């Protein structure tokens, strides 16, 4: 059948088709499937499917993402941004694991397995006890620690974007004295095919 829209292009989407692709979950719980999983179940799945990259305790192997820990580090010189320290919503954990993990085998976890892994990630972040069960009923009652850690984009309030920034633009004799180098990329020497390294080695 035709779309019935103004240009009559496309065809109606069937309910089964929408259900197959529409797996997103919102912070208010919209989109959560029925189901449940425990910390203990999640530990088994995590150790088998997740730990080789993310570490046995969510600490991350090599440069793979750290999932647990880091609470209270967001004002440190080197913040550790994890589910427990940084993420605002548990819905994002469920949604992302379900849609895109394990890396290289996405969409392979069932709804219940995803509940279980999510419960275990809460446990690794010291947010629930080891006998906890996560399910579609208690899910939306769980706030992550950094729930209130975000604000809207207010970059336009910064001075360089203020209305008078252009009026203050200096063209001549803007600074005293000659320019002095305060930092040099070549000192770090981490650039591939480093074009200047012939002077260092």
């Amino acid at each position, binding site marked *: 059948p035709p779309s019935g829209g103004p240009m009559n292009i496309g065809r109606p989407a069937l309910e089964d088709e929408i259900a197959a692709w529409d797996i997103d979950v919102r912070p208010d719980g919209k989109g959560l499937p029925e189901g449940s999983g425990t910390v203990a179940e999640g530990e088994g799945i995590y150790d088998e499917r997740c730990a080789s990259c993310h570490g046995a305790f969510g600490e991350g192997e*090599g440069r793979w993402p750290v999932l647990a820990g880091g609470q209270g580090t967001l004002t440190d010189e080197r913040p550790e941004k994890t589910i427990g320290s940084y993420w605002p919503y548990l819905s994002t954990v469920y949604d992302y694991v379900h849609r895109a993990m394990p890396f290289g085998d996405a969409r392979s976890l069932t709804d219940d397995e995803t509940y279980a892994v999510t419960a275990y990630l809460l446990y690794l972040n010291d947010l629930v006890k080891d006998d906890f069960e996560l399910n579609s009923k208690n899910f939306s009652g769980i706030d992550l620690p950094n729930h209130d850690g975000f604000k809207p984009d207010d970059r336009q309030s910064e001075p360089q974007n203020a209305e008078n920034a252009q009026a203050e633009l200096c063209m001549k004799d803007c600074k005293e004295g000659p320019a002095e180098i305060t930092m040099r990329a070549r000192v770090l020497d981490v650039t591939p095919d480093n074009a200047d390294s012939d002077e260092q*080695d």
Partner: protein
Amino acid sequence: MVESAKARGRIPNARRQFLKAGLTAAGGTLAVASGVKAAQPDPKITEIQDWNRYLGDGVDASPYGSPSQFEADIVRRNVPWLTADATSSVNFTPLYALDGTITPSGLCFERHHGGVAVINPADHRLMIHGLVDRPLVFTMDDLKRFPRENRVYFLECAANSGMEWRGAQLNGCQFTHGMIHNVEYTGIPLRFILEEAGVKADAKWLLAEGADAAAMTRSIPIEKVMDDCLIAFKMNGEALRPEQGYPVRLVVPGWEGNMWIKWLRRLELGDKPWAQREETSKYTDLLANGVARRHTWVMDVKSVVTNPSPQAPLTHSKGRTVATGLAWSGHGRIAKVDVSIDGGRNWSEARLEGGTSKGVYRFYHDFDWDGAELFLQSRAIDEAGNVQPTKDQLRAERGENSIYHNNGIQTWHVRQDGVTENVEVS
């Protein structure tokens, strides 16, 4: 870092040879590249060259052409230590070697989160559902029946220059600024797709999703969707490259590249944003006080001198020269670009040559080089009056851990021998 010099590709080797040749010239005068001072007749002129005598390839040799073999070093490059795995990683456009404003399709930087999806367009479907009157499915053939537009836009990764927040780190504008490309898109205004489905009154947000293994998702406010977003299936006149989302991608003019969903397969209308991983864990900007900005969509006004730059040193002696670069703003057109050769003490207005709203502009600063060291900077101002800030101004506002949205002024130190380096200056 520990690799041998020989393993490092041909640009540096060619440069080394050049520099050594230059250093043998008296007083460091780098006149070798100029034929003007030749005392002897140039054999490239006086002797008959092979290409002047023998036939070249016929028209059947190269059905789909490639760059000259002498341009083989002009390629996308990656920085292996930046990411855990090449399938969720980034590479960089060789800005230092390009001119004009259009990025050649094969040199457009790549950013994938689950590698390059390989999709036969006959198998691709686009679905729209949620708060619409008529949930619909389109094939690629369907999409090509909608009215389409051609627009030139820049796509800049939110993390472009992100490695430079703490100071000068990577030596070359390919690496410091190369997560950007600028191409002509052919596509359908996204509003046509929404109108075909019939948007309900309470629909305020659109979720766009890719068909790849990362199933990239982002929430976009409906005002932006109805304004200038496109569903594009061509770039620079031909089909999208696989690494740019073949067969179809989202175009979100002026906004961070992460939102330009590739391999686009699903559009859902809703009344609230979805707070997906790519708009909570990633693409949020942590400030010094521990609070993070979210929904930092627009890419602010920015510019960089692309030549000379660390990968493109000055190779002639003092005299007439050209500094050129790119400027862009997610807020619209570029109004003006200023160039400084003394680290921001004095500025001259550069010449703009080409450019589009929410696309890159090319600028040129033509000047006489007196042979002294240069501290080259560029400063862009957009039509909304936003001024490109210094990196120190940004750090004063945001700290050093924002990762994204570093549009600070870049400084290149050009030495008397032409060698150029990424620095920060007082």
